[in-house]
């Protein structure tokens, strides 16, 4: 007797930060764009470095590489624009990435309790186990709890 298991495949975007790859659910991604001028102004949210102007909209930039791979990106090839939820409100946020992005379908393995707050699950692709990122856990926002990362330093900032 054979047991047929239904595998739920989902679409993900693979992104590269230095030598490592991470994934985001494809339905969170708006577009991938070439780096453009960064506008900086005084603020106290240290995880944000400024904003870019895209089709008349102002989008904050959050370099998550230090949290995820322990160092800032030296090469930025693209900005991956994603949607981040703030309660019920959805806003765009730009993540600098260091290489090409790839759209794949894979099965999501849900996160376990031991996973860090920025991990929403795992997927297997090309022999690698890849973290699926939780933007709400990775990028700053109000009324949120801070993500714990092996690379994160104690800062006054509050994260989801």
């Amino acid at each position, binding site marked *: 007797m054979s047991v047929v298991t239904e595998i739920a495949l989902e679409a993900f975007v693979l992104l590269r930060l230095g030598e490592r790859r991470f994934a985001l659910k494809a339905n969170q991604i708006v577009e991938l764009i070439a780096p453009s001028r960064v506008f900086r*102004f*005084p*603020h*106290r*949210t240290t995880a*944000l470095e400024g*904003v870019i102007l895209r089709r*008349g909209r102002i989008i904050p930039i959050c370099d998550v590489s230090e949290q995820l791979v322990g160092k800032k990106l030296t090469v930025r090839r693209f900005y991956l624009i994603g949607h981040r939820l703030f309660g019920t409100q959805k806003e765009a946020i730009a993540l600098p990435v260091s290489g090409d992005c790839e759209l794949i379908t894979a099965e999501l393995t849900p996160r376990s309790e031991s996973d860090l707050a920025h991990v929403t699950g795992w997927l297997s692709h090309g022999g690698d186990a890849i973290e699926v990122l939780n933007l709400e856990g990775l990028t700053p926002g109000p009324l949120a709890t801070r993500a714990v990362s092996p690379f994160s330093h104690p800062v006054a900032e509050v994260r989801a």
Partner: protein
Amino acid sequence: MQAVAPNKARTPRAEQIILFRIGGQLFAISSASVQEVRSIDSLTGICHEIPSTSVRKVRHTVRRNDQTHYVVNGTVHFGIPAAPASLVFFLRHTPTALLIDSIEKMTTMTYLQALPLAFCHEERNWYRGLTPLDQTVVPVVRPEGFLSTEELTLLDTAVQELKKEAKGSAGAPE
């Protein structure tokens, strides 16, 4: 066809703004929020030093039209490198006199985007939002954001104590 819901973050009407610099950084403020612009030199003689408080950005007061204005050092407020100020904005509806480097120009903004929610610290009180202007993005300051209620209470208390001391020393026998 379904109508597109209006975006609450957008403000379509035009608004007169003043572009100015603090510590070399460009900011905008609604011209309706500025009661008067004066040069620093014109404050000589009407400016009074106040004792040190935890409000580091205020070291002086100016008495004007029977009201005490607290002179706010903009570079300390925004945490940017110090720069010599040459002008002061007396703001409406707040006892704030803001030190600035210079006025860039007066212009009109037609679009003000709310500060993205990812900015989640003090800057939410500092700015009304951001406006794209002449190929750049300018933060539009909130006049009430320079001094919080707590800071005003601290400063009011310091000024009251200073007045009491002055009265006491004036009345003391020589």
